[in-house]
């Protein structure tokens, strides 16, 4: 049962991680108005996965019924997700820079977030693994219906639920750290996640036969990193760190993570300092409570704790 639980956890994490960082980012940069689009993207992806999974499992559709086509589908959506997430990473860098040097009030203008982009990112993050997850659920549901007990179904659901909880905890702890640290850390975390998604996409392209070298392994540490252990599932779900990657996916990972990290962490040129005292931030009021229930911890005004910046003196 534990093995089944881990499948749910791994598949769930692959989707929730990006979504929870995205939500935290929007909340932190005072763009709560974009949250409905996030949930719309997530919802659409879930519905599509469920419907498609059902079609494949219970009807004789030939669309995406072949495993190769599904690999290709996952590969394409993964690579598309990487594009979106990369864009978000640099968006964060911009945000971090805006905070570091300028008026925090300008933050919202600097981040003119396209609603379609936000919805698209959430959608892609979930649809990537949604179809496969739906299919696993159907196979468990069938066995439950067949009278072998509902254990597998519960384990899977438990795994996905745990992933959602981890995502939520990540979101909560992200809200607690101060603003410029937040952008730096979540951005760096997101780079590792995105590199993992890209690596995953490359691997799927190889499995679909579009890219060569599936059996050309860079290394094999299955003996140390057991894919059946909880830590193996966590590493695979969060950063897609696997025990026996192919050379090509390893190259893809490095070729993405290294330059992007370097670009991201590069010291930005000091922006011009405004001579006049800063205007009050646009909306520093406490955010209205959300269903997520984070009203309990209204983030303290970052300026209070920020040694790294020289924003205007703190307002009472």
């Amino acid at each position, binding site marked *: *049962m534990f*093995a*089944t639980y*881990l*499948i749910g956890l791994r*598949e769930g994490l692959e989707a929730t991680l990006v979504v929870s960082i995205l939500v935290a980012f929007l909340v932190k940069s005072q763009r709560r108005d974009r949250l409905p689009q996030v949930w719309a993207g997530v919802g659409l992806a879930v519905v*599509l996965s469920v419907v498609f999974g059902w079609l494949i*499992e219970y009807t*004789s*559709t*030939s*669309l*995406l*019924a*072949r*495993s*190769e*086509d599904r*690999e*290709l*589908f996952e590969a*394409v959506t993964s690579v598309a997700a990487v594009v979106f997430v990369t864009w978000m990473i640099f968006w964060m860098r911009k945000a971090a820079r805006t905070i570091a040097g300028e008026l925090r009030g300008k933050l919202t203008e600097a981040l003119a977030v396209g609603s379609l982009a936000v919805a698209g990112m959430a959608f892609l993050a979930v649809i990537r693994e949604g179809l*496969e997850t739906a*299919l*696993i659920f159907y*196979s*468990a549901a*069938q*066995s439950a219906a067949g009278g*072998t007990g509902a*254990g*597998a179904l519960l*384990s*899977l659901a438990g795994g996905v639920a745990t992933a959602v909880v981890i995502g939520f905890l990540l979101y909560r702890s992200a809200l607690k750290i101060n603003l410029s640290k937040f952008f730096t850390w979540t951005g760096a975390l997101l780079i590792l996640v995105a590199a993992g998604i890209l690596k995953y996409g490359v691997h799927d392209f190889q*499995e*679909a*036969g*579009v*890219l*060569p070298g*599936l*059996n*050309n392994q860079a290394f094999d540490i*299955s003996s140390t990193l*057991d*894919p*059946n252990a909880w830590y193996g599932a966590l590493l695979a779900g969060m950063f897609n760190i696997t*025990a*026996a990657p192919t050379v*090509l996916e390893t*190259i893809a990972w490095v*070729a993405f993570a290294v330059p992007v990290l370097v670009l991201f962490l590069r010291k930005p040129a000091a922006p011009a300092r405004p001579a006049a005292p800063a205007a009050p931030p646009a909306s520093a009021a406490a955010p209205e409570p959300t269903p997520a229930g984070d009203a309990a911890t209204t983030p303290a005004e970052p300026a209070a704790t920020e040694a790294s910046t020289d924003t205007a003196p703190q307002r009472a």
Partner: protein
Amino acid sequence: MRTTRFVVPAAAGVLVVAGLTGCGGGDDSDAKAGGPIAVKATDSACEVDSTEIEAGQVTFKVTNSGSKVNEFYVYAAGDRVMGEVENIAPGLSRELRVELPAGTYETACKPGMSGRGIRGALKVSGTVATVAPDAALGQATASYQRYVQSQTAALLTRTEEFVAAVKANDVARAKDLYPVARTYWERIEPVAESFGDLDPKIDGREEVVEEGMQFTGFHRIEKDLWTTGDISKDGAIADQLLVDVKAIVAKANAEKLTPLQLANGAKALLDEVASGKITGEEERYSHTDLWDFNANLEGSKAAIAALRPALEQRSPDLVKQLDTEFAAVEAALGKHRAGDGWKLHTQLSKAELKELSDSINALAEPISKVAAVVAR
């Protein structure tokens, strides 16, 4: 469904790559009257209900009665994945639908999701025609084309990094990047060599001076890196190298190779190994010849892999021989790994070099027959 329009053409592309004739969409007439083939997977066994089946659309129903998560694969020769289903949780069944033309395959269960899995033979016979020979050759060039594209992209990236290191006067980093960037170059050298002047500009050794050319490119920088350690004046050379590499990448990606060129390229790469790498002549300053050796070998293997479906149809015995000899060379070369790179040429004894040379010659023999088989 919006996804439909885009997945089906893509899927059709995949079908072509896999060497199948089926169409991505359309009717789903199960070729099997008896429904899906049952596969019983446990932590230590993999029982496939029928191992001799009819060609066409095949469905496997894999039931995992072990305690570990399982995966099920169908492999064609050379471990080409025909289809796979992952995440089969203990106690559950999942289906794999795959289209199989006549031929011999291997099935594999992978309890615990790692390793080569528990293999079994699968014989597929029947009337679903395999691809017409010419189509097989057409696919060969298309799939090699994709290989070239992936390698040239990496070549460009690595060369850019190398050039940046040279211009930053970072000797240590440039030395590290040098054999890596060269790897991608050496893998596709025959393609690159078909573009006249660019090849000597990028990859020429000091002797090009005798032909009235300037000594530029990789080896010029190599010489400075490893002899004087002074690359402070190499900025212009590095810039030119990048310009040339960019030009060759653009050309290589636009080039349509014929199957015969593939066959000859595979052979040319081995000749490269014999004439330049075994002798230590290519990387005379850095002694990183084994990186190039390995890359030439991989490039040769990629060309043969692309031709494989066509060769299988025309000369299955030759394919077996090639597999054996490739494995032998890889084993001989594998002894000289050092970390994630290779030993230097200077660290190899005469006897070791001779062993490498013999294994290359043994492989060159069947490779030299490939062109004739392709031209039939």
